[in-house]
């Protein structure tokens, strides 16, 4: 098993190689049309990404080099630097060096980059400043160069062609300029030669340059001798992985059906069983990525959020090796960004406030991941001021989400969970980071769509922990099958608490809905038949939830599946409860993907389609209906 670091390095390499190839290609495009904005923007973006990734991995030389390239293109973008043929040539050299630097990560070869890097830095400075200030600027440089050089490392390389350019310039320009250029050349040349310099005469410079050029030709060949390399990773479009997963799902269903049909000869199938299970396991494994992938991107997110809010925050990551399905990670990434920004915006206090509260000025934000038997728990923990329950209570009354009487009766937990309702926000003014009131409910929806859940623990003055519970894979789910109107449906087991049988007399009409008790708690009761029979043309009859109940015979046994969602417990009345089953849930595609009561479908052993109930959707619908007074 590879260590975490090696895996990261492998992935960085694959990405970096790709970036390098892309820049090479873009550069050839640029050469044909030096004014092409799109290409310039693209190169800027790629070098920026490369810089970030490299610095994040600790590869300082690649990072710095990419940084200079990025800055250069930044100036080009702003029109402060015009691309000429010579500059293009220099850039090509630079990209070659970049490629060599990336290769060096595996080969360990030393790469000379300081020379060309300096050339680019000089170009950059010239583009940024004006000529005159350059003079004094350079004089300063001259004074500091001795120290600089002794600091600068011994591995350097110079670009012969650019030098020629400089040489020409040195020869062509007169007087002051000449000296200026000389000093530049001197700096570059000195770093190459590692000698302590003294004011050098132009002629000497020219001679030495000629000497070095020969030396460089050899080196140049070395660097350009890069082969075409293929990385060890294969880039697979996720779509193909999804396809693979689908097929494996089908295979498992078929296998189960065949084994069930021939239960006498069960032993015959043990090999088939084993192999297909291994296959399923492997495919699910291929789709797994480390949570750290996502977590690492949060250094920047946290830093930016803190900067905007003028707060000080430290980010701590734990459990980054925990693995999770790639699709799930993708779906929650936006949600997590929002939660992190929220924690920094609302949770962590301003430094002065923290100090007066006796806390460290720098707030701590921790992202942790751990895996349980069938789930991954991701926690976002901050040591901020916690959620002000009373403030939230006021807000929901103000927003009309609940009436005053109802709101005052809600427990602390209920209040805290109401931040996930649409339209909620306690921020008095909307900042760029948080307060728009669209964040938390979108987070909740995203989690619901994958069958995850969210809970919040908060302590005033101490901090808040937001805990996300995510299924570790999107593939196989445990469900409870039931029959309704002669069709089979499935409820995810994650939401199912119990299965009971009640009689009509145990159920009472309360308001617009029905209620009963279970283990001492009051639960709502809903006849699923009523919910599904809602005609799409008409508005639901206000009392539709009572319909089946009214038609019911007194002594009939009712089969009820008790489900919990969002701290609400609801009992669904069905015709018949069937068995437990592991299924592969597929999402709904257009044109039926807007159905709120159904979260997905699965294919049964007999080839028929079975709908998977969206417990959240139904619960929300039923409750919002009955809350409306």
């Amino acid at each position: 098993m590879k260590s975490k670091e090696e895996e990261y390095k492998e992935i960085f390499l694959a990405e970096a190689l790709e970036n390098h190839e892309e820049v090479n290609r873009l550069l050839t495009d640029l050469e044909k049309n030096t004014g092409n904005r799109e290409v310039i923007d693209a190169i800027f973006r790629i070098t920026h990404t490369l810089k970030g990734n490299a610095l994040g991995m600790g590869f300082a030389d690649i990072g710095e080099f990419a940084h200079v390239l990025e800055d250069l293109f930044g100036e080009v973008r702003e029109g402060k630097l015009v691309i000429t043929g010579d500059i293009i040539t220099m850039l090509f050299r630079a990209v070659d060096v970049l490629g060599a630097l990336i290769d060096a990560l595996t080969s360990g070869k030393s790469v000379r980059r300081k020379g060309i890097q300096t050339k680019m830095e000089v170009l950059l400075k010239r583009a940024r400043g004006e000529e005159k200030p350059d003079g004094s600027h350079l004089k300063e440089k001259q004074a500091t160069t001795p120290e600089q050089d002794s600091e600068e490392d011994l591995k350097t390389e110079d670009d012969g062609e650019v030098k020629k350019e400089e040489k020409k310039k040195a020869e062509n320009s007169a007087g002051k300029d000449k000296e200026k250029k000389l000093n530049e050349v001197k700096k570059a040349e000195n770093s190459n030669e590692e000698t302590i310099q003294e004011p050098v005469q132009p002629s000497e410079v020219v001679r030495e340059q000629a000497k070095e050029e020969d030396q460089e030709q050899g080196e140049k060949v070395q660097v350009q001798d890069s082969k075409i390399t293929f990385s060890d990773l294969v880039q697979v479009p996720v779509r193909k992985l999804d396809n693979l997963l689908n097929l494996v799902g089908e295979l498992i269903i078929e296998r189960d059906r065949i084994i069930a049909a021939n239960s006498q000869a069960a032993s015959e199938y043990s090999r088939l069983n084993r192999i297909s299970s291994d296959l399923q396991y492997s495919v699910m494994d291929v789709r797994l990525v480390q949570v750290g992938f996502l977590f690492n991107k949060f250094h920047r997110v946290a830093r930016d959020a803190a900067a905007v809010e003028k707060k000080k925050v430290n980010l701590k990551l734990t459990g980054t090796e925990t693995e999770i399905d790639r699709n799930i990670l993708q779906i929650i990434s936006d949600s997590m960004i929002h939660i992190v920004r929220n924690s920094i915006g609302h949770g962590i206090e301003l430094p002065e406030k923290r100090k007066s509260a006796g806390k460290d000025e720098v707030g701590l934000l921790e992202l942790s991941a751990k895996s349980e038997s069938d789930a991954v728990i991701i926690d976002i923990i901050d040591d901020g001021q916690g959620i002000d329950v009373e403030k939230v209570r006021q807000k929901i009354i103000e927003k009309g989400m609940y009436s005053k009487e109802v709101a005052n009766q809600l427990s602390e937990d209920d209040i805290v969970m109401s931040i996930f309702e649409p339209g909620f926000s306690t921020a008095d003014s909307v900042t760029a980071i948080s307060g728009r009131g669209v964040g938390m409910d979108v987070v909740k929806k995203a989690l619901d769509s994958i069958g995850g859940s969210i809970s919040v623990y908060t302590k005033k003055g101490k901090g808040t922990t937001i805990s996300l519970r995510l299924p570790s894979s999107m593939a196989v789910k445990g469900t409870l099958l039931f029959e309704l109107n002669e069709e089979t449906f499935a409820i995810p087991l994650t939401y199912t608490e119990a299965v009971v049988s009640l009689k009509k007399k145990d159920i009472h009409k309360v308001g617009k809905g029905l209620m009963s008790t279970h283990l001492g708690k009051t639960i709502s009761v809903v006849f699923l038949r009523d919910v599904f029979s809602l005609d799409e043309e008409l508005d639901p009859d206000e009392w539709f939830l009572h319909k089946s109940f009214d038609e019911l015979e007194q002594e009939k046994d009712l089969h009820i599946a008790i489900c919990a969602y969002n701290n609400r417990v609801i009992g669904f009345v069905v015709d018949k409860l069937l068995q437990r089953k592991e299924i592969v849930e597929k999402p709904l595609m257009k044109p039926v993907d807007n159905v709120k009561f159904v979260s997905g479908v699965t294919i049964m052993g007999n080839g028929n389609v079975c709908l998977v109930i969206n417990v959240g959707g139904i619960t929300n619908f039923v409750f919002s209906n009955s809350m409306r007074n």
Partner: protein
Amino acid sequence: MENAGENKEKQTNGSEGSFTRYQLIVFKQGEEEYAMHIDQIKEVVITPNITRMPQTSSYIKGVANIRGNIIAIVDLEEKFGLGKTNAEVLNHSKNFTLVIESEEFKIGLLVKEVPNTLTVTDKDIDESVNIVGDGAVDKNYIKGIVKVDKRLIILIDIYKVMSKEELGKTITAGV
């Protein structure tokens, strides 16, 4: 007589230059003939077992499993107002399903008989048609009228049939 004239016309055109040929799939809905470009259709299968979906328009009969893919089954006849069929009649008479598949969409159209193919040219398609319609949305899906022999075949773009508005129309009560 007419035919001869037509043929002559075609020949003249042939000598004038090239014109694009289109392959169409022609299927019957009610008493009318409809057509689609052949590349819009993925396959034709015997209609499988349909599972009804709540909260969908009534012309969406439900979903079915076709080769491992979940396809929404649509009764165009109902949508176009050519006659409503209820569930029992459905499984016996709507024998075949035209499977339309794209990146976003997977739908199946119910038809009674296996559809035919037809090759036509530009000339045979009349695109400038103003149809007395039920508003801009519905009008868009008709791409033209194909006139071949004495038949009048309505050429449609299936993706426009299932327009965005339609897709969004589900029960939103209370949520």
